[in-house]
């Protein structure tokens, strides 16, 4: 087990090095740090002096090495547009994205588990059929279309819910939160509903398939034979054993949700990390872009490694399959 953990961590460090190399190459080839610093009105000779002072004429590997050291200390360069450290800009946008993902995850859990269980217990009922048909169609609908449809229905036609921005936020120890105002909560409804629509079909199908598989097993038959109450067999005996695969998939998909926030944040003008990333692309703000790449890379690598290690603890087959 110890060897497994070490191997996973080495792999994670290796992946981070690759991501940082990609990030460094982008910064090295596309951005112009001198322009970021002094603007256009400086003579070429003066620029050359600054280049030398900043060490931009050093060989590639020296500069890359410096980049990695600085990144480890939390210095990912200055954002050209905001004139602030890139990491600080990202940190100021992160709460919006994180709150969106939290609410989405809650919706996913609250909707998919009961719907999946119901569809597994009564596969022939009309409700299950509708749920399964809807999840087939749902896979084919891109998230931005769901979002636009929700905006058109609830914001333009019915005028019940706001369609853009975060509304009123409260500052809690530097964390801009929309959880504590009625307005902020109202603004969360549509973005999180559309974001959860991507994952809902997958999760309902997953819970249903796992539950159906468990219901066929011997120990469930034994539980029936013992004459246990239906509720007890379903929710205590069967459901508990579907949780492990569901939690694993959930962990991995949480990372993917972050990817999709870029799309939802664009539609809803939600000023989170994804929105900031697209703005950075439009403004050619290379340092901010690279910083975002590194931050997202860290999130993915950490989530994946933790999920793998936890899974290794629970399921010995995983950690043995990796050894050659």
């Amino acid at each position, binding site marked *: 087990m110890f060897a497994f953990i070490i191997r996973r961590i080495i792999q994670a460090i290796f992946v981070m090095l690759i991501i940082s190399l990609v990030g460094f190459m982008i910064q090295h080839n596309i951005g112009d740090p001198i322009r970021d610093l002094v603007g256009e009105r400086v003579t070429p000779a003066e620029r050359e002096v600054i280049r030398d002072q900043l060490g931009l004429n050093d060989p590639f590997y020296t500069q890359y090495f410096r980049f990695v050291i600085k990144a480890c200390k939390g210095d990912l360069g200055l954002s050209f547009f905001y004139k602030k450290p890139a990491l600080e800009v990202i940190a100021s946008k992160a709460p919006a994205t994180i709150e969106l993902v939290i609410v989405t995850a809650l919706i996913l859990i609250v909707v998919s588990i009961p719907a999946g269980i119901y569809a597994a217990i009564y596969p022939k009922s009309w409700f299950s059929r509708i749920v399964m048909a809807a999840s087939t*169609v749902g896979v084919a609908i*891109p998230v931005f*279309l769901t979002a636009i449809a929700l905006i058109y229905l609830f914001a*333009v036609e019915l005028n019940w819910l706001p369609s853009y921005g975060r509304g009123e936020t409260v500052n809690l120890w530097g964390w801009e939160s929309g959880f504590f105002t009625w307005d902020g909560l109202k603004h969360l409804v549509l973005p999180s509903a559309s974001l959860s629509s991507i994952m809902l079909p997958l999760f309902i199908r997953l819970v249903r398939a796992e539950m159906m598989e468990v219901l066929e097993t011997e120990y469930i038959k034994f539980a029936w034979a013992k004459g246990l109450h239906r509720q007890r067999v379903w929710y205590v005996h069967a459901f508990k054993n579907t949780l492990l695969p569901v939690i694993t998939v959930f962990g991995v998909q949480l990372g993917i949700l972050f990817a*999709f926030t870029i799309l939802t944040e664009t539609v809803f003008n939600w000023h989170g990390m994804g929105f900031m990333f697209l703005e950075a*692309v439009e403004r050619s703000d290379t340092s901010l872009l690279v910083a975002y790449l590194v931050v997202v890379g860290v999130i993915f*690598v950490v989530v994946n490694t933790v999920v793998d290690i936890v899974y290794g603890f629970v399921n010995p087959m995983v950690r043995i399959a990796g050894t050659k």
Partner: protein
Amino acid sequence: MKAWNRFKSSYLLYSFKRDPLAILSFSVLSVLVVICILAPVLTPYNTYDTATFDIMDAETPPAWMEDGSKSFILGTDIQGRDLLSTMIYGLRVSLLIGVGAVLLQSFVGILVGLFSGYLGGKLDSFLMRITDIQFSIPYLIVAIFTSAIFKLAFGVGRYAELAVPLLIIIIGVSHWPIYARTVRASVLGEKNKEYVEAARVIGISRWQIMFRHVLPNTLTPVLVISTIQVAEAVMSEAALSFLGLGMPVTKPSLGSLIRSGFEYIFSGSWWITLFPGVLLVIFILVILLLGDWLRDVLNPKLYKG
């Protein structure tokens, strides 16, 4: 002729004829593909030619509404282009990019999977590590980052000009690991069968065994993933275009049409968003349904609730 007879008595055709959903989705898909190919003949307007449309016609509603005009059946978009023609051209672009990207990713993935599975050893561990690493990062993130980098590297103007080949490369590069894994798995299954051993014994070269003998036997799962991957590629393209990282508004794909329509949805021009959106969903849905059907027919073992 012989091949036709074999096809006529095959299990594939038999199960196709018995599945109304497969027939329906196949016919819808064929109609859409034919419309795409014949777009220049069928569409009333050439939407790439700026001389044929007039900004004064912009945001005309569909023909059946008041203010609608007989000459624009589904209305016009924000630049005054006939929406129906623009949609057909847009679907054409989406289809082209989808198929192109799938060809590219299957090419890369099959090569990697074949070498990795057949040759094994250090090369296998190396290639599979790379595959694992890319697999752990969602393909959409890879696609969004690559297109953002390309956009910065090429500049907005050049990027818009080269959008179609660039998008094929971007989506192709972000999706290949799934092919590599599938092909490697089936190569590992085929590698130790008797026909491969027989070929080795009579002294056929390694390359010939790999490409002439093993590869054809691994293509069934490739076919199954390919259908679903086309749908995925079309969806990725739409997402990228919607973010403004894909096709430009002058040569819109369905995604960029939806993006431009979305900016006008608050002023009540719902049709610019709705019709391309519905077309996109139908297109993706029929491909997915066909893919599901194909998977169940070709590999009954995979079938699970």
